[in-house]
């Protein structure tokens, strides 16, 4: 392994330390006895206990989870459709515009997306609240799903689909019985990504939500503006934990599916 030099290892270690140290420190200080986030005064879980009595925060968490579940599910369906449209149909009217609308939200500053969607809801007279929030989340997360699923579809062997069609399967049956099982891991990780993006979003949510639909990041943000407290560290630690669990499950699922697929292939060749 002459190629992997000491310089390479050093830059990776430093880069990863930079990426992870702040999060690790945040988690450590959520267990701090003292109210100060920068001076260690002993181990305590009192900030977590205190969270359980913070009704506003619990309400916000519930809103966030509901918005996340609904918007991630719808976004996964739409995003998968968009990915199919992008990879299967290279020529249709307005394809340029279509791919533009898939990629633009990935880089569009959130203040613009948020403001423009809010003005749409006002223009059509849709009262801002839980549902406008959900619609906005579907719109920006479906593009991420589309990109994730699209990259899987690009390496997909289409001959098995054609075989199914030749044997008389309808397009819908082909999709459900042949295509979907193969791309399922990508669709699933698209869902998890959409869910976590929805869970995390602050700017678009602030613009598009109304009274009674405050999400967790909005609540955290308004508390952060008042100062750094271990209680916020505790909320953040729980959020990080939830997301880490989700990612872990997603990767285990996709790995076991991959192993299963390889086994199936070997079994098929053995016969």
């Amino acid at each position, binding site marked *: 392994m002459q190629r*992997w030099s000491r*310089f*390479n*290892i050093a*830059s*990776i270690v430093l*880069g*990863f330390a*930079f*990426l992870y140290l*702040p999060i690790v*420190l*945040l988690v450590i200080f959520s267990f701090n006895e003292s109210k100060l986030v*920068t001076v260690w005064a002993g181990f305590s879980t009192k900030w977590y206990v205190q969270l359980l009595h913070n009704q506003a925060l619990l309400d916000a968490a519930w809103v966030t989870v509901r918005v996340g579940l609904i918007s991630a599910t719808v976004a996964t369906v739409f*995003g998968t*459709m*968009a990915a199919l*449209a992008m990879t*299967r*149909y290279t020529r*249709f009217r307005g394809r340029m*515009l*279509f*791919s*533009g*609308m898939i990629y633009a*939200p990935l*880089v*569009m*500053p*959130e*203040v*613009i997306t948020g*403001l*423009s969607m809010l*003005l*749409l809801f006002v*223009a059509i007279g849709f009262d801002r609240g839980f549902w406008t929030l959900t619609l906005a989340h579907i*719109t920006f997360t479906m*593009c991420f799903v*589309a990109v994730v699923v699209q*990259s899987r579809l*690009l390496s997909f062997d289409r001959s098995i689909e054609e075989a199914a069609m030749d044997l008389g399967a*309808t*397009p*819908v049956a082909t999709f459900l019985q042949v295509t979907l099982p193969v791309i399922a891991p990508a669709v699933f990780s698209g869902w998890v990504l959409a869910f*976590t993006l929805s869970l*995390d979003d602050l*700017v678009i949510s602030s613009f598009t939500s109304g009274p009674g639909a405050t999400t967790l990041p909005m609540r*955290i*943000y308004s508390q*952060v503006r008042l100062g*750094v407290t271990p209680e*916020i560290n505790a909320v*953040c630690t729980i*959020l*990080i934990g939830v*997301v880490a669990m*989700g990612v872990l499950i997603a*990767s285990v699922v996709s790995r076991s599916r991959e192993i299963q697929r390889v086994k199936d292939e070997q079994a098929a060749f053995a016969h």
Partner: protein
Amino acid sequence: MAKFGSALFNRLVIIIPYAWLLFFFLIPFFIVIRISLSETAVAMPPYLPVFDLASGIGGFIDNIKQFSIANYIWLTEDALYAKAYGSSVWIAAVSTFLTLLIAYPVAYGMAQAPNTIRPTLLMLVILPFWTSFLIRVYAWIAILKPEGLFNQLLLTLGVIDQPLIILNTNWAIYIGIVYSYLPFMVLPIYSSLEKMDHSLTEAAQDLGCTPIMAFWRVTFPLSMPGVVAGCMLVFIPAVGEFVIPDLLGGSETLMIGKTLWNEFNANRDWPVSAAVATILLLILVVPIMFFQHAQAKADSEGR
């Protein structure tokens, strides 16, 4: 029947997401432009003229006659806005450059790593992207504060004897942007380096290039698509960034995302914030088109 079903399925797969994005993503931009041409009013919604579908074509033409570019003139008269646009582009450009400096060695190291540990490294780069942006920015406040962890470390080591003031300066914003967007830069560079044929650098070295020269003449140019994609992925959203300048920047830091937010939430001036957004969009339209062009090209090559 199968034929008909097939056509219908194909159509729906295109039409549903297309219509959704047209309605919720593209049309809103036209509404933004339209409202930027309205006048501020003390009403709900706080602008004039309002949409009125009932008044028909005549009403619509009347509407257009009432349009004014007063908001844009206002933006040019107040130097604050020009400064905010200028410093946003500058801060985004500096941060993008710093991100590239840090991300490239990491991506390069990953591409050189043994095959067995590459998936793990890749996972470790992606993981922070799944953690809340807000949380990651928040984590830096406790580190960068004058009595924060970074200053404590430096004081203990005896590097400094006065705490450094980093929080609420542009440096804090640079750190925040580099930190938050690092995975966006590492991933595209890594994927273009990973695809590279190593025999090319070997050939360059056989022909008498030093390793450093081989890097600059062969490896770096070949990784350009990844570098460009990474820079766009960092630069474009960073120009309109709100959370980072708001939490880490100082009161005198001007960034357009923050200006827009304040104009909208504090001053309740919707037409002016719509005009601010329109100009921001105009500034970003060239980089966005460039990014999409690069993406479309990468897609067709991946096919």
